[in-house]
């Protein structure tokens, strides 16, 4: 589903954000991308939705060579890749319903599809009852759920999350991770960049660790800190 081959990203100021990255992520995976701030997690995500072009190497997303993509084809890629950010990026003058519908309206969806899709995703993220509220009337966790609903409303195959719980308290963090897990169970590939060790260690999913733009560890059912697994690692975060 996602493949990076010898990908290097050097910013114009000379910063080497990514260095010879090789990575394969299978369809339907749930993957954590961990590492300290500035190790290249966000840069790697940006390559996947073509916000950034690699300096060298190949980036393939859903069989599309992203670095070769013509400008006019970028919208098509982005409808297949939902993105969620730490700061939610909701439009403050639109209600939850309008924020979610906006993603469909601007991609030219028909009204009847909008009327069908928006309630479906709002139901999925548990915000159906708050659809008429504005972002400022919601808690941080609810705002992030609205942002996830917007990212999902186009039925993307991949969901990229850049520090999705960075602004949330532990209780909201758990709710969001629970939601992302459920989305993954429906078949969406989920890639989460985070430095929240607690979340990573409780979920026990594939963990790719970046340091100075290089992959230094890649483990199935990994921990945030590879060598010293924390004591509470077995506590399930996701209530099944």
């Amino acid at each position, binding site marked *: 589903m996602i493949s990076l081959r010898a990908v290097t990203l050097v910013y114009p100021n000379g910063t080497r954000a990514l260095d010879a990255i090789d990575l394969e992520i299978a369809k339907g995976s749930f993957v954590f991308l961990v590492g300290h701030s500035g190790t290249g997690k966000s840069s790697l995500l940006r390559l996947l*939705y073509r916000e950034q072009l690699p300096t060298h190497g190949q980036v393939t997303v859903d069989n599309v060579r992203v670095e070769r993509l013509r400008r006019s084809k970028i919208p098509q890629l*982005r409808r*297949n890749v939902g993105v969620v950010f730490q700061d939610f*990026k909701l439009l403050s003058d639109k209600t939850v319903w309008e924020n979610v519908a906006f993603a469909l309206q601007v991609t030219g969806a028909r009204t009847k599809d909008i009327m069908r899709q928006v309630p479906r995703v709002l139901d999925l993220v548990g915000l159906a009852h708050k659809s008429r509220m504005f972002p400022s009337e919601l808690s941080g966790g609810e705002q992030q759920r609205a942002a996830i609903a917007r990212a999902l409303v186009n039925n993307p195959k991949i969901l990229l999350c850049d520090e999705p719980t960075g602004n949330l308290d532990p209780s909201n963090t758990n709710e969001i991770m629970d939601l992302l897990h459920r989305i993954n169970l429906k078949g969406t590939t989920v890639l989460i960049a985070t430095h929240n060790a607690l979340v990573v260690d409780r979920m026990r999913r594939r963990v790719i660790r970046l340091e100075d733009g290089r992959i230094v560890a890649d483990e199935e059912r990994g921990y945030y800190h590879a060598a010293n697994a924390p004591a509470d690692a077995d506590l399930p975060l996701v209530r099944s």
Partner: protein
Amino acid sequence: MDWGRLRFFFSEVWRNFTRNLIMQLTAIGTVAVTIVLLGGFLFTRDTLGKIGDDVLRKIEISVFLSDAATTAQADSLIAKLRADPRIASVVYVPKNEGLRQMRERLRGQIDTSLLTSNPLPDALRVRVYNTDRVRDVAATIRRQAYVANVEFAQDAVQKLLRLSDVLGRIGLGIVTLLILTAAIIISNTIRLTVFARRREIAIMQLVGASGTYIRLPFIFEGFLDGLLGAALALGLLDVARYQLIPKLVVALPFIPLHAIGINEGSFALELLGVGAAVGIIASWLSVGRYLRA
């Protein structure tokens, strides 16, 4: 037809349009001033052209025959001139008729009863088909026998044509500058709207809206600025047409203002088209540059 899509599009346009009302009004006002001046320029150019045509149509060559010419010789000269394909008409004005016409023309200005003898020669008034050939025809006539003198209003016509030409160039220059100014102001207005909506644009790009879809409301906003400005200008020009021109016609009776046959429908459409085109092109360039970056 999906009315929901259309409603969404126009609600976006309306939000853009009302977000920066002062700037929109500035843009519309600039377009209006430009179009009023363009209309005024076209009107003046048409009027001068009309006057020039009028004078040219009336231009005639006065041919004065020598006193030695007999009636038969004059007749033969007239026949010869009438055979010339460049000449439209030849009118024979005998000296008595010439004097009568002069007395008529000068009545009340000079006491013509003081003229005891007739100082005028027999004359011919010649008109040509193509006014560009006046000079050639005059030269040809001058070479004929029994022709004493040939005159025509060459200088006056040439000055008028030169004036019309110079005014045309100056007017075109001013209108071009004004159109550029209007385009720059519209372009800045649109850029402000784009800037005010940068978060929405970023989200549109993130969720996969096409470039055209993102641009279209802004282009339409520019189109509206241009169109409304041109419509305002047409209103002002209409006021000028019905309030000002009748007064000018009374004040300047020698200028054939009333004769200007502007086709109002197509003239209005042209001006609206210019306004709309300036708006569309300016906003297209402005949005295009922002979204590429």
